[in-house]
């Protein structure tokens, strides 16, 4: 027992050494501590400075940063919701919101104000405690994912050495929030939606994880910054072009990610024509807005992860051109993927449940396993990323794309044209 106590009292458990030294939180902590030591303390009167609790100050600085983070990030969905409506309008030959502000740019702000002032209705037959808790779980987990995403060379919360694994773990908790919301609403639509969502997320997590594995095999690290660091030599060193298998893995990852965030064509959990709005049918006002914000934050997060893993992260198209630490390039790439998601949403019809499950279990998972095998063999043949391996990989991708185009074109041409009804 005494060793147990010694462990707790050891200097190891000291904030100045980092909370979780093994997860490399030190960098962030040192930054906060240096801020206290170098900026705050010299400005205080000497009597106060001598007794200033550095540890407490460090924590307060960290909380402040977290506050800024939480304050700024909901603005992102604000922008994305407007973008989604504008994109949808363009696809349907409309103009979208035009009244509030110039070109309707303040429409989401007005909607937000409306949502805040709406009645906060709680179903009397439901489970009140879980009903109130569920949006916070989803919201917190969606935003906890951002802690491990590097937005630029030094613009990141923390470089965990288990980065991508942490992201997968945290985002797998979201499904608990969804089930909680669906069950506590005590409504058929909500329960159906949440069970659909849970089945879908649990299924699509497998191809998602397997395609992340191909990247981890090549990089030999789970850390997001190291994954980015291997892609620092311009566009052809991006992991998507590293081998033909990572090229396939990118598409499996991206499509599975769309399924994970419940967006059309995989939006069965909230299919309006079948189950009203799925798991958040009973929510109103600000609680509904929390779900909405979390959904758009998720969309941005999975795009950011796809960019980090496959499209070079914050590294530029040309080696050595990282403007402002790579932040603008990263945001542009991520928003391009977000736009792709919106494009798919307003183009494709919704899948049926059996199609959804077939796609996952009969196509994606076997292909993902094949990818892992192929990546292993590729890693044995080309242990280093050289010019030759990149050229061979790009050539195979090019030939494969042309072959796929020809085959797809032929099968589409043989299909009888749909008759107008």
């Amino acid at each position, binding site marked *: 027992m005494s060793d147990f106590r010694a462990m707790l009292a050891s200097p190891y458990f000291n*904030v100045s050494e980092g909370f979780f030294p093994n997860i490399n939180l030190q960098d962030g902590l040192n930054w906060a501590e240096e801020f206290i030591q170098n900026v705050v303390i010299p400005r205080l009167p000497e009597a106060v400075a001598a007794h200033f609790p550095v540890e407490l100050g460090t924590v307060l600085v960290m909380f402040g940063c977290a506050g800024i983070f939480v304050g700024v990030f909901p603005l992102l969905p604000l922008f994305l919701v407007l973008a989604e409506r504008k994109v949808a309008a363009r696809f349907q030959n409309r103009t979208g919101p035009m009244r509030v502000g110039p070109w309707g740019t303040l429409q989401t702000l007005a909607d937000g104000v409306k949502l805040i002032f709406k009645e906060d209705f709680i179903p009397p037959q439901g489970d009140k405690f879980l009903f109130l808790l569920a949006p916070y779980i989803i919201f917190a987990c969606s935003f906890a994912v951002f802690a491990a995403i590097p937005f630029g060379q030094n613009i990141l919360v923390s470089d965990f050495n288990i980065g991508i694994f942490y992201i997968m773990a945290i985002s*797998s*908790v979201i499904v608990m929030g969804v089930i909680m919301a669906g069950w506590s609403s005590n409504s058929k639509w909500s329960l159906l939606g949440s069970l659909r969502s849970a089945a879908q997320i649990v299924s699509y997590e497998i191809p998602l994880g397997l395609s992340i594995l191909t990247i981890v095999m090549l990089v030999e690290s789970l850390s997001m910054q190291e994954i980015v660091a291997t892609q620092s030599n311009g566009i052809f060193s991006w992991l998507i072009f590293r081998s033909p298998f990572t090229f396939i893995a990118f598409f499996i990852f991206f499509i599975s990610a769309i399924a994970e965030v419940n967006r059309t064509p995989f939006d069965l959990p909230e299919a309006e024509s079948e189950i009203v709005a799925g798991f958040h049918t009973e929510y109103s006002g600000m609680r509904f807005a929390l779900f909405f914000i979390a959904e758009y934050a998720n969309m941005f997060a999975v795009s950011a992860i796809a960019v980090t893993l496959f499209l070079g992260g914050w590294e530029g198209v040309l080696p050595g051109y990282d403007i402002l630490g790579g932040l603008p390039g990263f945001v542009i790439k991520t928003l391009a993927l977000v736009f792709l998601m919106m494009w798919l949403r307003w183009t494709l019809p919704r899948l049926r449940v059996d199609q959804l499950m077939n796609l996952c279990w009969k196509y994606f998972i076997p292909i993902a396993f094949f990818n892992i095998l192929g990546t292993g063999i590729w890693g044995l043949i080309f242990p280093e990323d050289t010019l030759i391996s990149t050229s061979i990989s790009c050539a195979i991708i090019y030939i494969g794309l042309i072959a796929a185009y020809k085959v797809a074109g032929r099968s589409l041409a043989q299909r009888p044209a749909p008759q107008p009804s």
Partner: protein
Amino acid sequence: MEITLTNLIFYGFALLTVASALVVVTVRNIVHAAFSLMVTLFGVAGLYVFLQADFLAATQVIVYVGGILVLILFGVMMTSGRLEMRIHIERGQLLLGGVITLALLMLLLTVIANTPIWKNLTDDGTALPPTTERIGELILNGPFLLPFEVVSVLLLVALIGAALISRKEVRD
């Protein structure tokens, strides 16, 4: 004992784990018990982080919260008509349960007391290298290769069995 923030967080996690575990076994509503189990498993993951087992912590969350607990909830929601559990407990069961619990407690206390050094914590405050690489080496290139392969074959058999049982042609 020095009160540091780390200590407070550690005890916070410990309290979270124990309190939610108590809720799991005492609450009558079975869905509440399941959600409380989520908090327990999360708290245990937090304690793993304090033991410098980062990979294990993430695995705990991804496997138990994201996988097994979802299955438990599926089972509860799909099967039970009424959620209030009124389990009748005989006195003999209570006695037997108490004995087993005490035995387990003694066993765990012995293990805690007899562990010479908590090897994953070093006294000079330096962090150990990340565990992911060592786990990978041990499983795929070391003494645990055979158990790992045996377990994976076992899981594959279970998977095929589940697929077979749920097929319509076999069931009818």
